């Protein structure tokens, strides 16, 4: 408890796009309740704050920390450990922190080629192929920037996590609901959910919320939605030969994408009991291929451009294999 007797709140932005931060600000007036109920101890996006102030706090001083973004460099990791120690409730907030999300797709390639893409890509004018140095002697003294890790890890791989709020970003109405729960709990009106619980999302898969009609599935060819002349607005997308991660992805978004006419990309992470979204989707999709002839099956599979990328779009870093071989072998050879 702080001087004003309010519980302390923190939010931190690690390796991610920042959308999560916006999503929180998107909850409307509810933000006022947050402000009313909490003493904002540390929220770089919203207000000025210093790491040393956090370090100065006694352990467990912060009641609720929403941590978004994955762990890609040593600063992320440092902050994760610090906030873990200072917080009573640490929430992996959003897809990056919990599943790796799009930044996690970098786990397909090794660090070197990543930097190469960024600093020597076609869109970059960098004739001398300059890359940032982790340490550099300036007149003011040695300047250091965070060191990139060879792969991206999710928050729970670095520290213990109490809750997860999935989504890329989490739906604002879901955030609001979670906040209400926490507040109610603080008022002692109700129990906090059991640790490890997933908040602000459904239990079933996206299909449960999807309004599209679905029938028996027998697929003869797969195609990318952008290559289709017309997409049937009411029929299940998979039955139209479009890869949709809905069947394995946790609901809670009101099936936004399928409703809007696009395939589910899987941002809400694995539905309850799903061990590995990629494996699940693979098994499911392969099972509905309507052929017994290896050659034809392969022809049909050719319609699935980049299987790993499609099936693991949001959870590669948290999948069984976590990262493609080059990513961690390159590291090993260091």
């Amino acid at each position, binding site marked *: 408890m702080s001087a004003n007797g309010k519980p302390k709140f923190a939010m931190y932005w690690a390796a991610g796009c920042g959308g999560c931060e916006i999503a929180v600000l998107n909850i409307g007036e509810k933000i006022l309740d947050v402000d009313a109920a909490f003493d904002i101890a540390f929220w770089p996006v919203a207000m000025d704050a210093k790491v040393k102030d956090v*370090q100065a706090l006694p352990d467990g001083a912060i009641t609720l920390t929403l941590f978004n973004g994955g762990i890609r*460099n*040593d*600063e992320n*990791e*440092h902050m994760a*450990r*610090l906030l*873990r*120690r200072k917080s009573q409730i640490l929430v992996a907030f959003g897809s990056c922190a919990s599943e790796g999300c799009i930044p996690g797709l970098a786990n*397909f390639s090794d660090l070197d080629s990543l930097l190469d893409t960024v600093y020597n890509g076609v869109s970059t004018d960098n004739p001398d192929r300059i890359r940032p140095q*982790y*340490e550099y002697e300036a007149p003011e003294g040695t300047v*250091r920037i*965070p*060191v*990139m*890790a*060879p*792969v991206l*890890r999710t928050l729970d*791989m670095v*520290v*213990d996590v109490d809750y997860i709020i999935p989504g890329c970003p989490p739906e604002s109405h879901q955030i609001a609901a979670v906040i209400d729960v926490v507040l109610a709990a603080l008022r002692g009106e109700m129990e906090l959910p059991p640790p490890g619980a997933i908040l602000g999302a459904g239990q079933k898969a996206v299909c449960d919320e999807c309004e599209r009609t679905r029938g028996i599935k027998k697929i003869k060819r797969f195609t990318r939605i952008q290559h289709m002349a017309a997409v049937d607005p009411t029929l299940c997308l998979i039955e139209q030969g479009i890869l949709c991660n809905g069947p394995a992805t946790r609901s809670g978004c009101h099936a936004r994408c399928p409703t809007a006419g696009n395939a589910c990309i899987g941002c809400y992470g694995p539905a309850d009991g799903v*061990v*590995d979204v*990629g*494996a*699940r989707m*693979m*098994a499911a*999709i*392969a*099972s509905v*291929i309507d*052929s*017994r002839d*290896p050659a034809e*099956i*392969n022809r049909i*599979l050719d319609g*699935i451009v*980049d*299987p*790993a*990328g499609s*099936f693991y779009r949001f959870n590669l870093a948290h*999948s*069984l*294999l*976590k*990262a*493609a*071989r*080059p990513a*961690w*072998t390159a*590291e*090993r050879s*260091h």
Partner: protein
Amino acid sequence: MSDTFEPVIIGFTCNWCSYRAADLAGTARVKYPPNIRLIRLMCSGRLDPAFVLKALAEGADGVMITGCHPGECHYLVQNYRTLSRYLLLRRLVAQMGIEPERVKLVWASAAEGVHLAREITRMVEEIRALGPLDWPRRLPRPTTVPPALVPEEVPA
């Protein structure tokens, strides 16, 4: 490649054909390398790609999927599902930087003990040639941490 490398291969068998083939190999005292460890399923159709990924992630150097010959599935047609799953799995595994040869599909009827043993022996040799997979149990952290940012160690 050091010749002292002994691969570990996880084999998934169908209760009606390949598992019985393995039993038959036993009763016939057919010899094959001990590098393979078999898991019994009721049908190759039960094979969940997650099992394969799990095995590779947990330290197996290869995975052999076995089932009844096409057209002879004891559950009529389920091994065709296995076939398409396998064909898709191979593609994904390759994208993960794993040699597709590390995942193999073998048809073996309950009568084909010798055939199964041969396939196992062949695969062990192939994997031995490929070398260890050694998938990391936990992902690597940054190699060098500048003093400025060394976090105060935390009792986790």
